[in-house]
């Protein structure tokens, strides 16, 4: 139903003249086919998605949907009607205020009768088990919940083809598995499904997988684990000799808007001891309170009750503790890598010499070459940007580092690098590694804790974790099913 013939595309107004994003792409997608598209961050996957429904037009070649070329402006509506796209960023594609409104929006555009709208809302919300979110404000949902809503809203329009562009990236393992199941269900029902991702693990159910790299596509078998291409730290650099400090979390409870009628309890009586110099893992699903705990340990918020200390004193952000948020590169505000890394150090009042030596050491610690320092941040790949943010935190020289989903949205290779850097910090800094990716946490940490609905469900050595999960499975806990 979709034919791409010799498609080339370059963002001619952009700063990379002569480097097309796509070059001579031929592709044909059949009705009911489940196609996987895999590629690293920045390989042109999103460009391909936008070409499929005419949001972008090819510089050369043609894209034809059901016999209509996307160049045909008059019939663009018919193309959009046939090809729906669920984009990556869940915050920027919600059009309605509430979940229901968001679904209604698309259905009104294609003139679905009112009674049918009701039927489809019920159907597609229950497909993802999110009926209870129907009247909720989208802005207040978690990232994973928003992505489920995005998917339901496009599916409800029942187009002939749906493109999913990294649309599952923020879901916890259980929701992700359910969403993947629904994608293949769609394809079995005759809808063409194109799933774009950097994560090979998501493509197990596809009929066919292609890879995009350097503007070209190549057919793929489901690939095996790649070799790690990890840059060795530059020789002769040393990290400041800091051994990390003990973090003590004592009877911490936290409630947002405490005392008001909108109070939301997030954490309940958490008691944890994190040893100096260890990498401590915290696992939790959507809404478990893990990001709240991260902010508290990093000193960005003060707990409603209980206390947190680092080597006996309260956390001071930028001094004794640093934090890396999810997608920190979204908040770069300087032009070059060097300027961005210097930002925090200058705010701290460090002299130029100190700034320079700290930057060099931190770059070495994350295995980035010094040449990167003069690059504009926008030139770097997502993985490199994440490493730069990481280096910025290390450069501040905190005793403790809190990492909140540090591998979110990264392709396999970049994820490996981040994990290697984290392992390399063991013994030198106290690291709190927070994630819903159980596998990553088990890899980097010796001791782990599990948060469930704001409560501490598990706190022990890694070796005890498998037994515990078995037990949970027997008791029917949803969590342990990765």
């Amino acid at each position: 139903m979709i034919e791409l013939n010799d498609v080339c595309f370059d963002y001619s107004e952009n700063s990379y003249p002569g480097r097309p994003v796509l070059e001579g792409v031929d592709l044909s997608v059949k009705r009911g086919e489940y196609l996987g598209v895999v590629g690293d961050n920045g390989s042109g996957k999103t460009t391909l998605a936008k070409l499929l429904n005419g949001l972008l037009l090819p510089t050369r070649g043609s894209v034809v949907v059901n016999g209509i070329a996307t160049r045909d402006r008059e019939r663009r509506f018919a193309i959009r009607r046939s090809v729906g796209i669920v984009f990556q960023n869940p915050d920027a594609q919600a059009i309605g205020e509430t979940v229901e409104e968001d679904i209604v929006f698309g259905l009104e555009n294609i003139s679905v009768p009112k009674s049918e709208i009701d039927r489809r809302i019920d159907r597609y919300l229950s497909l993802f088990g999110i009926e209870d979110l129907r009247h909720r404000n989208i802005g207040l949902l978690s990232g994973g919940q928003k992505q489920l809503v995005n998917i339901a809203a496009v599916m409800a329009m029942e187009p002939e083809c749906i493109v999913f562009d990294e649309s599952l990236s923020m879901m916890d393992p259980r929701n992700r598995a359910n969403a993947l199941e629904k994608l293949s269900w769609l394809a079995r029902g005759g809808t063409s499904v194109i799933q774009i991702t950097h994560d090979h693990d998501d493509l197990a159910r596809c009929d066919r997988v292609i890879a995009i790299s350097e503007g070209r596509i190549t057919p793929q078998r489901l690939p095996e684990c790649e070799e790690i291409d990890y840059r060795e730290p530059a020789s002769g650099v040393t990290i400041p000799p800091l051994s990390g400090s003990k973090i003590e979390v004592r009877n911490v409870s936290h409630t947002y808007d405490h005392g008001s009628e909108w109070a939301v309890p997030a954490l309940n009586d958490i008691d944890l001891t994190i040893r100096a110099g260890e990498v401590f893992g915290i696992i939790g699903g959507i809404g478990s309170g893990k990001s709240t705990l991260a902010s508290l340990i990093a000193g960005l918020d003060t707990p409603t009750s209980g206390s947190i200390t680092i080597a006996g004193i309260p956390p001071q952000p930028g001094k004794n503790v640093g934090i890396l948020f999810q997608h920190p590169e979204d908040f770069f505000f300087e032009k070059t890598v060097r300027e961005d890394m210097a930002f925090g150090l200058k705010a701290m009042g460090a002299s130029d010499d100190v700034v320079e030596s700290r930057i060099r050491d931190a770059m070495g610690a994350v295995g980035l070459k010094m040449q990167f320092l003069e690059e504009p941040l926008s030139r770097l790949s997502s993985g490199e940007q994440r490493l730069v943010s990481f280096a910025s935190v290390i450069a501040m020289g905190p005793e403790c580092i809190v990492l909140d989903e540090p591998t979110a949205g990264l392709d396999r290779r970049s994820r490996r690098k981040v994990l290697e850097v984290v392992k390399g910090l063991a013994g030198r800094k106290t690291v709190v590694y927070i994630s819903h990716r159980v596998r990553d946490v088990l890899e980097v940490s010796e001791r782990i804790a599990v948060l469930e609905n704001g409560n501490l469900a598990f706190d022990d050595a890694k070796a005890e974790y498998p037994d515990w999960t078995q037990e949970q499975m027997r008791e029917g806990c949803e969590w342990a099913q990765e």
Partner: protein
Amino acid sequence: MIFGTYRKRDSYLHRIDPRTKLLLTAGVSIPVYLADPAGLALLAAIVSVFAVAARISVANLLRGLRPVAPFLAMIFLAHLAFGNSIPAAAIPVARFVLLILTTILLLHTTSPSELKTALASFMKPFGGPGAEIAFMVGVAMAFIPGLLLDKETIARAQAARGYRPKGLSGFTSLIVPLLRRSFRRADSLSDALESRCYHRDAARYYYNRELTMSDYLLVGGVALILVLSGLSVSPGT
């Protein structure tokens, strides 16, 4: 005070059609400007009845007034300074208070989406452009919470690196990434709109509802009370 005050609840006023509430709020604001003290007392009584019907606590109403308190004090003092007696200076303040309270009532009981629908319905006589304007207002309203969230996240990201905003440089280090993110967000939003088949002639019908007898009764009742008490309205006080 304007945004985010809506609380989903079940009350008489919550159930009233948003168009009726919008009309009432606009309608009451005219006599609020014109009424003499007796008329103001009557209007205050009407507003109180509505506040009870909306199940809003007095504390919540007062909280809504707090941000404008300095402004109200200024009006009061200015009138005193120009030689008015204390009661005479209190009257303009009372007008403002009533105006603000009616607005709070509206925003407390009407969700932004209901307001949007009401606006779209009032814009209907203006055809395509009217619908488009109403739609833009809706999209802009949906954009604001995201903007506030971004601001908060950027400030936290900077605080995490030990940055304490000071004066003008604090402002610029916040505004630059915020703008960049907003542009990106707007770009993505327009892609999402197009992909979901948005076109300006698209009819918005799902949320249409018929005005019921209770809507007519309510508007008629308030109008009747105001007209009957018309005697106490004397312009220029």
